């Protein structure tokens, strides 16, 4: 087991890019390798040691034996764990854009907030955000029609707009509230939101399921009432309570399911 601890000593005003510092690429690096490494910053590179104190303990045979600890405010560190396939990364602070993007395996824990595009195009692994995140969590790349396909994202705080856009697999859990258009264009997968949702979940969805335990502001017209279900079983998971089930988006002949907590959404009954 190898533990790599990077402690922030100077916050760059321009974002650092960490997609090269993932367990897959650095599992056999020694302390000296980190000290010789220049990290991309904007259109150039600077020594990693300008920004971090580095500690390396233990040895690893492969990426799965690596634990990276990023101490400090990583609010200006992009692409943390981008494309990683194994190992663990713990961020003790906020994370900048694209945290856990294109992740294939392993685990990332953010003990703070994550900026937009967290878990973009995830193919596997687990991303846990203890704080909140912003727009396009678990989404696709700009222009792309293939989004997150597998893995699990858990957000303990709130999520922003277009959560799980183009979702084609995997699971997203939001413990707090969520902004507009969760699950837009989704074709498969599961989204659960425990807090309140502003409006329009499931716009243009073709399939997959969205479950909302809080209060929904505005329902999209493309989702039509199906039935009231008690203690539903959705994708092998059991939920207790009464839910209003909608299907849609009928604009696309969608067969997706939207479940709203009946208790919290009495006005829709």
């Amino acid at each position: 087991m190898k533990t790599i601890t990077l402690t922030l000593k100077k916050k760059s005003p321009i974002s650092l890019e960490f997609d090269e510092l993932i367990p897959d690429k650095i599992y056999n690096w020694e302390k000296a390798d980190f000290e010789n490494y220049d990290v991309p910053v904007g259109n150039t590179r600077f020594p990693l040691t300008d920004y971090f104190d580095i500690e390396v303990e233990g040895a690893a045979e492969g990426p799965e034996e690596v634990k990276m600890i990023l101490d400090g405010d990583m609010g200006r560190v992009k692409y943390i764990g981008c494309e990683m396939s194994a190992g663990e990364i713990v961020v003790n602070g906020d994370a900048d854009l694209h945290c856990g993007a294109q992740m294939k395996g392993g685990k990332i824990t953010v003990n703070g907030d994550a900026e937009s595009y967290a878990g973009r195009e995830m193919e596997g692994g687990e991303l846990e955000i203890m704080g909140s995140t912003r727009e396009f969590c678990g989404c696709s790349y700009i222009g792309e029609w293939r989004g997150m396909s597998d893995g699990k994202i858990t957000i303990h705080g709130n999520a922003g707009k277009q959560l799980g856009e183009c979702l084609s697999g995997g699971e997203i859990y939001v413990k707090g509230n969520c902004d507009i258009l969760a699950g837009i264009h989704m074709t498969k997968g599961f989204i659960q939101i425990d807090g309140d949702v502003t409006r329009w979940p499931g716009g243009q969805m073709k399939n997959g399921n969205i479950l909302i335990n809080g209060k929904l502001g505005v329902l999209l017209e493309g989702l039509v009432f199906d039935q009231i279900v008690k203690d539903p079983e959705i994708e092998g998971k059991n939920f207790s309570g009464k839910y209003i089930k909608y299907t849609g988006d009928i604009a696309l002949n969608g067969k997706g399911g939207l479940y709203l907590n009946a208790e919290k959404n009495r006005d829709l009954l």
Partner: protein
Amino acid sequence: MEYILKNGIVYDPANDIAGEKMDVMFKDGKIVSNVSSDAKVLDVTDKIVMPAGVDPHAHIAGPKLVVGRIYRPEDSRKGVTPKTDVCRSESGFSIPSCPATGYRYSRMGYGTVVEAAVPPLEAKHTHEEIMAIPNIDVPPLPLFGNNWFVMQYAKEDRIDELAAFISSWLKIVKGYGVKLVNPCGSEAWGWGMNVHGIDDPAPYWDVTSKEVIRALSKANEMLGLPHSIHVHANDIGHPGNTPTTIGTIDCVKDITKNSGVRNQTIHMTHLQFHIYNGTSWRDVESGAGDVTDYINKNKHVTFDVGQITLDETTTMTADGPHEYSLHALNGLKWANKDIELETSSGLVPFIYSGKSPVHSLMWAIGLELFLGTEDPWQVCLTTDHPNAGPFIRYPRIISWLMSNERRQEMMDNKEVHPWAHRKSALATMDREYDFNEIATITRAGPAKIYGFKDRGALTPGFNADIAVYDLNPNDIDPSREPTAIEAAFGAAMYTIKDGQILVKDGEIVKVVPSHTIWTNVKGFEEQENAIMEKVMPDFNRFYTVKFENYKVHDHFTPYPIVVDVQASK
């Protein structure tokens, strides 16, 4: 500066040199037959030396490309490289950025690439993009097949006026030759329709594709343009389109050629998309046999293949209705770009996969065309970049053509769907191209087809456009080493353009601006003036731009190569 490329093994089909060990010399940008003792020696002992590549059909500059880059940022993120001391950063896979386009062609040993579809209205922008593409010379082909003036003259069979219109318009837009895309069909798309076959008239015009093709061919030969008409036929990508294709080729058979260089009166482009037998995608079969039978008997036609490379790419063509039907087929995002009075184009991303029966059959049909055409001077290597695949796959196609073993292996290993051999004759064809035939279909042939008198051969006096590949033809067995062939043709040991070394060992070492090659017809000035007087009232009435803003001024072609042509011999 004098150079001598020493001891290379030279393939120069235009001069009947097929694998001879000899020196190639050049001085001040031109090939020469001898140099002084001061000449700088480049040792290329036992390496393949060929003229630089000539791509007869690709979409590399113009409004479609811009739409593609705007609406496919997910393509731009592929192939991103940081800038170097010599190169700017690159981006894109199927629609590379302008600099990347130049660098990537240059790395493959190419020196000339034809931009095959320029809407005259957007010619200015096309030239601006050509300015941003380094290292390759670009002849742009303006679109004439759905132009309102052309359709009018074709309908009334006014060939003299049509010829005058073409010679004026080539000057106005700085174009090289005459391109037709789905003649009458792209006009019909303005009404949400298409034409089917060459005898189906465009709505409200009462003129058929056949009449337009014949009229443009006659006008083309009346002027004696260096290239023949360049035709993207009707019914592209529809099962059952083979008769339309053969009908298109056959309808200009009686027209007399007027050129000292080329042999053909019609060049059919991306023929692979046009030769599907059957009535639907369920019973579709290869029509390559019927078409190659015809082509082997008729020398008035040349073609390029448009080989499927089995990649995720972006289709873009000035065939608006076809792009809409592709969108209906694969459900991916569609962009339409209408050009008033002239043409209409569209774009759809496309994922060609070896798992798909239809795509595998298309792959096989392309290879069948290569292997079934007896005379390599009639066939050119293209992918109709980016429609059937990006141009960076040319080396891979070369490796397929040179190795029957590899082709059979792909069919045996299920890298392609069994439809590839069930519905085509590919599995029975064991022909393998040799290096001389490869040199023919990638440089000498296209250069002859375009009537170039300054490139495509290592003749003294020609431009010193030379490619050297790190392969010893006496050592390598292309049949068994397709990977080595692909690697070598993908990274030239030297690419020399106008006597300057641009690529060394697969890396760009020098960046030079592109030349724009355009055709200037002489001796037709009176007719041109007369036609402009006739055209202007309609131009002012129908176009939304003023003529003053339409013309491509000289500063859009800072490095022109003007091909002067004396009209009517």
